[in-house]
Each structure stands twice: as C-alpha cells, then as structure tokens.
C-alpha cells in the first residue's frame, strides 16, 4: 500500500514547475493570450526538448514510456501555470496510437511525436455537444462508390490548427488518422472564451485516413484519458486560484489590518481549500486506474472530471470575489484561470453528462 507519488514522479513535477517558471511565467501567458492564436511554436519546442512530447511514447519508439499518471502530473503543473500548451492534445493522440495503432502506424508516427517533428491533436466532439462516439457522424469510407475518405465537421477542436497528425473520431466510435497537411482538412479559428487555448472548427472533406484498430472501445479509453487530463488541469488551476487568493488575503489591508485576519474571509478560503486539496488524490486514482486498467477506470475518469472541474469553476469564481474589484479586471490574472475553468468544465461534456455516466456504470 503506497498511494503516493514515487520519487521520480515528484522530481518530474518539480522539473516541469521549474521549467514553466523559466520559460512561460504568467507574464508570458498573458502575452500569448492576447494574440489571436496562443499556440507558440517555440514554447512547444522547449516542451519537446524537455521530453514532454514523448512522455507516453513507448521506449522502443524513442519515448519515455510513462503512464497517464505521469502525464497528469505534468498537466497539473501546466494548469497551475495556465500555460497555453498543446501537451494534453498531443499526449492523447500518442495514447490513441499506443492503444490502437498497428506496428506500422506506430513506427510511422510515434518516433516523430517523441522527437518533436510531429505534433498530434485529437478531433472528437461535434456540434450539439456530441462528445462521445455514439453520437459522432463523421464518416470514413474506404473507397466504395468513389467517395473515398473522411468527411464531417468537428468542433470545437483544441490546438488543432498547425498540427501534423489529427486523430479523428468517426461514426460508431472509430478512430482514424489524418495527416495534418491533407488538403481535405480545413481549420477555421473560433473565438474561444479561454484565450490560452486555440480552438477551431474543422471541416473534413474527403481527407485520406488510416484507420486505428477499433477493438474493445479504444475510442472510449481515449476519451477516459482525456477526461483525466482535464481533471488534472482543473486541479492545477484550482490550486493556483487558491494560492493566489491566500497570498492576496495576506497582503491586502483594509480597516488597518490584513484582510486575511477577518474570519469571513478565512472561512471562505478554508472552504476553498477543503474543496481543492483532497481532490488531488481523486485524479491520481483515476489516472492510476486507467494505467492499470482497473474495472472502475472509466467511472473514476468521469468522477475526476466532473468533481474536479466543478470545483475549479467554483474556486475560480470565489477567487474573483476574494480579490474584490481588482479581481474583476482584465489585468488580474484570475480571469485567465476563470476561463480555463470554463474550458475544463465544458469540454468533453459538462458535469451533468458525467454524473449520468457515473450513475449508469455504478448499476444504481
């Protein structure tokens, strides 16, 4: 019994924290978020240099061969820093290949994904909140009747534009690989509320695809992994909101004293801490359950996503309140987290969707 991080995992997280402090502190996040496209080629290159591109790529393909828990720890740090990084999307694409790729597909793509030549993204959701395989309508025809290729619309796709490899979800819950340069792909930028994430609407018109194995619901495993990573991001963001609020309460003075000495504020902050801090162990568990393929892995992923993303939204809103007037301004960094909380909460389904999934899989 050791429900705790290993030394290596602690070091991994410290390394990423230090890296973010050097390469993408919050001032840099702000600069990137003011652009039309927050994706920064140089930042991603530095992430790849650190080894993040190949974190989940098996060693035989030049990666570190680590698990979802390790990736989630990285994501927690990125979430704490509100870093505009396509790490989640790239990592989920790696997982899709790892789970469903043939030897040939793996050999073709994984080494490049580890080295940084290939950036992956994943296009699953469609209009009207069709996040899961049973509602995807994008079609992949393998040639009969002259309509060969992938056709459909995916939106919103995060960090999709400019990627070299797109994993596309198809009707019935299949996954297909499409090269980013395929002329059949058209990304149209969407103005998202969260300016630290690039969002697009992806029109696919006859792109050539290479199908991933459909055995045993690979697509739903891929969704589960993504849910866990969103939960980890939400945890990191919630921790940042709490830490910033506590720091502000210790520094801001009114009525001649630090506002943090007022019991009303202390209780608000204590309630925030109570919601945030124990939840870390839930995303750990969900990631661990995924890595070990435990029976409740899917349920745990839904629990982590719904519980932690809900908390992030509440904590970010409380953080605005704790900061008072300044918290309501564009200049205050809390707004970046508030909007990331919206993204984490709503992308891949809001919490009610996942509550229903939990209820179903628990046999109530």
């Amino acid at each position, binding site marked *: 019994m050791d*429900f705790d991080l290993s030394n290596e995992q602690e070091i991994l997280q410290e390394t990423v924290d230090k890296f973010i402090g050097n390469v993408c502190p919050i001032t840099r996040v702000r600069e990137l978020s003011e652009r039309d496209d927050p994706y920064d080629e140089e930042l991603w290159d530095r992430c790849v240099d650190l080894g993040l591109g190949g974190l989940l790529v098996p060693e035989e393909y030049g990666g570190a061969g680590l698990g979802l828990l390790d990736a989630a720890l990285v994501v927690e740090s990125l979430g704490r820093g509100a870093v505009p990084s396509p790490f989640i999307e790239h990592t989920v694409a790696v997982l899709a290949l790892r789970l469903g790729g043939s030897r040939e597909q793996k050999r073709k793509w994984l080494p490049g994904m580890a080295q940084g030549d290939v950036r992956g993204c994943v296009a699953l959701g469609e209009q009207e909140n069709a996040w899961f395989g049973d509602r995807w309508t994008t079609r992949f025809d393998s040639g009969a009747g002259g309509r060969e290729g992938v056709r459909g619309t995916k939106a919103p796709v995060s960090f999709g534009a400019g990627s070299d490899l797109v994993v596309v979800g198809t009707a019935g819950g299949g996954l297909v690989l499409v090269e980013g340069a395929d002329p059949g792909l058209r990304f149209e930028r969407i103005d998202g509320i969260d300016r630290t994430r690039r969002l697009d609407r992806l029109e696919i018109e006859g792109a050539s695809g290479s199908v991933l194995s459909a055995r045993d619901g690979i697509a739903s495993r891929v969704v589960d992994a993504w849910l866990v990573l969103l939960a980890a991001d939400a945890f990191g963001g919630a921790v940042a909101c709490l830490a910033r609020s506590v720091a502000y309460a210790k520094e801001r003075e009114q009525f001649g004293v630090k506002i943090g000495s007022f019991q009303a504020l202390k209780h608000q902050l204590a309630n925030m801490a109570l919601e945030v801090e124990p939840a870390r162990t*839930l995303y750990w568990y969900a990631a661990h359950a995924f890595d070990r393929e435990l029976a409740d892995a899917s349920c745990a992923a839904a629990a982590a996503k719904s519980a932690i993303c809900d908390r992030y939204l509440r904590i970010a809103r409380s953080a605005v309140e704790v900061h008072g007037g300044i918290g309501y301004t564009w200049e205050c960094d809390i707004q970046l987290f508030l909007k990331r909380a919206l993204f984490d909460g709503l992308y891949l389904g809001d919490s009610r969707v996942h509550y229903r999934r939990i209820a179903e899989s628990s046999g109530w």
Partner: protein
Amino acid sequence: MELGYGEEFELYREGVREFLSKNWPPPGKSGEGIDDQAIRAFRRNAVEAGYLYRAIPRRYGGAGREPDLLEAQIIREEFRRARAPMEIGGISTQMLVPTLLECGEEWQKERFVRRTIEGEIIWCQGYSEPGSGSDLASVRTRGELVDGEWIVNGQKIWTTQAAEADYMFALVRTEPDAPKREGISYLLLDMKQPGIEVRPLRQITGGTEFNEVFLDDARTPADWIVGQRGQGWQVSRTTLKHERNMVGNAESAEKLFRQLVRLARSVDLEEGPAIDHPEIRVELARLWNEVLIQRCSGYYQLSRSAKGKSAGNLTLMNKLAFSDFAQRVSDVALRIIRGDGLLEPGRRRGGNEKWLNQWMGSLGLSIAGGTSNIQRNIIAERGLGLPRDVVGDR
C-alpha cells in the same frame, strides 16, 4: 503508486484470517449464545495474538506491539469482514487511555488502563461548560486543594455517558491567578459520590445521550491529577503515536452512501423508484464523487503516515469533510422520503422517517468535538497560514 498491500502484508492478513476462523464466532457458539463473557474472552485472545490494543504495553493489558498503520488497517478490514468485536471505542479508550499512557503516573496506568480497555470501567469527559464551548480554555470549574484532597465546584455539560460512567477526567481551574491556559489541571474524579449530580439533557432527536454534571464540593484525592498542576491544557492536547484510523471517515461515508442508495431503491419518487429519478441520480453521483475523494484522501494519508511523512493540510480537513458530507446525504434522503419526514421517528420504528434521526444527527456532527466553524479557523490559520483573529483572548 501501489494500492495493494504487497506480499509481506498479505501474509500478515492470512494470519489474521486464520486467527479469526478459529476464534470468531467463538467455537460452539452462535447468535444469542455469544454473551458478554464470550466477547471478553475473544478480545483477550485477540490482544494476546497482537490484534487489539496494539500500542498499549503488555503490563497494562495491551498487545505491546510496534505501531504499524498498515497492519492495523488490515486487522480492521479482516475483523470487520468477520463481524468480530474490535477494540471498545469511545473516549475511555481513545482519549483517556492514550493520555494516561503519555502523561500519567505509573500507579495511574496500573490502576486504570487494563480495566478501561477491558470495559470494566467507563469514563466520561468533563471538558465543556455552559460558558466554555469552542473557547474551552476558559473553563471556570474550580478545584482547591484542601487537606490532601481536591474540592471541585462547577458545572460540566454535553457529558456523554455521565450517568453510566464510573469516573470522569476533567479540566479544572486550579490556579486562578495564572493565565488562562496555564491555570488548568487535568483531574480524575469518582462519579459515584454525593458531590456529583447528573441531569440528562434531551437532544433535538428526543434522545438523551449526554448530560449536565453538577459538581458541588465533589472530592478527589490530591494525586488523582494527570501531569502537574497548571499543565492540564497541554495534557488534554496530548496526541500519542497510536494507530489512528486514517480511512475511518471514508469508511463511514461509504456506509452512509450505501444506506442512501438502498433508500432510493426502496422508495418511489414521481414515476418509479427514486433511484431512477434523473435528479436523484445526479445527486447520488455527486455524493459518490465525494465518497471517492474521501477514500483516496484517506489512503493517501494512510500511505504517508505509514512512511512517517506528513499528509499536509488533508489531516486538518477530515472532520469538516465528513460532517459536510453527512449533511448533504441527509438533504437528499429528505427529498426522497418527503411526507414521511412529517412523522416522529421514535414511534414507528423501521419506517423511512428514521432518516430524520440522521438528518438531525448530522447537525450534531458539525458541532461536537470542535464545530465546523472552528475547523475552518484551524484550516485557515494552521493550514493556509492566515493571520490569527485580531479580537478576543486566546
């Protein structure tokens, strides 16, 4: 990260199972045949085998083992599975005994510890007073040493089991001129004496689990004091290195949740069983998430403590998290039982209205043993490092 216990501990588990299969239920007995004497005998065997009262030295009736949180957890799991008697719970064994072991005189340990853990004597706690709730260090019950005896006058309140108790351990002001926390002594008193009167207090549930205790020239020998004069406050804060159950809250939360699911299955809400009602399903999923968090947080705390490492602020949050959870469960239960909630739960036993006891009882959880607001102060000040209140006399 590893959620299993590993080979060495699974071997240990085998031993516990073997012991239980031989000893519980007691050979040749079942159901009604298992009387108090049989339970006492079982506990003695379990102590002998090293499974109960592990941290208590053998000379005081314990098993005298090195503390090991994982072994302790395995023992709890297996004893629960076998529905075998565990340690006698409550403040006698969980508060008084550790305090005596840490701060008591040798004669006090010899005289009281064994009889307490064997259930021969019962203690009550004389801490709170009508004017001293959250501000416990303001106790005013006075103790004066007169001719080799403490003469104690004052009033204690919320005293659980005061009527049944043989003895009380009490916080008593013996040094009236000393600063607040330095003027208190930790005294032991015989409850069966003319100077002590116990009056039951009726709770909102109608039950009477606790009492007022009036001390009117109550007497106790001069050496029935634990620690020195004026050290009572520190003595009462003593925490011993014993095998605290780190996942106890999570186990209670899960049990309560399962009861709620059973209720939702058995009661109709609108068109069909409540368990199929979309809003109830959402509420159940929300609560299940909380159960999972408490379970994961519990196992993390267990793992950290087993390695001798801190689990940070999480240890400060368990009580508040559980009492919040119990209140949320009670709200959902009330939504399910609806009109049955108009009935008096005491009279028609077995009906859904018995959930009213949980509904009211969950309020008690957020008050007893440090109110939820005090818990929030602790999290804010000790956990988050916020400045202490500017007002008052602490």
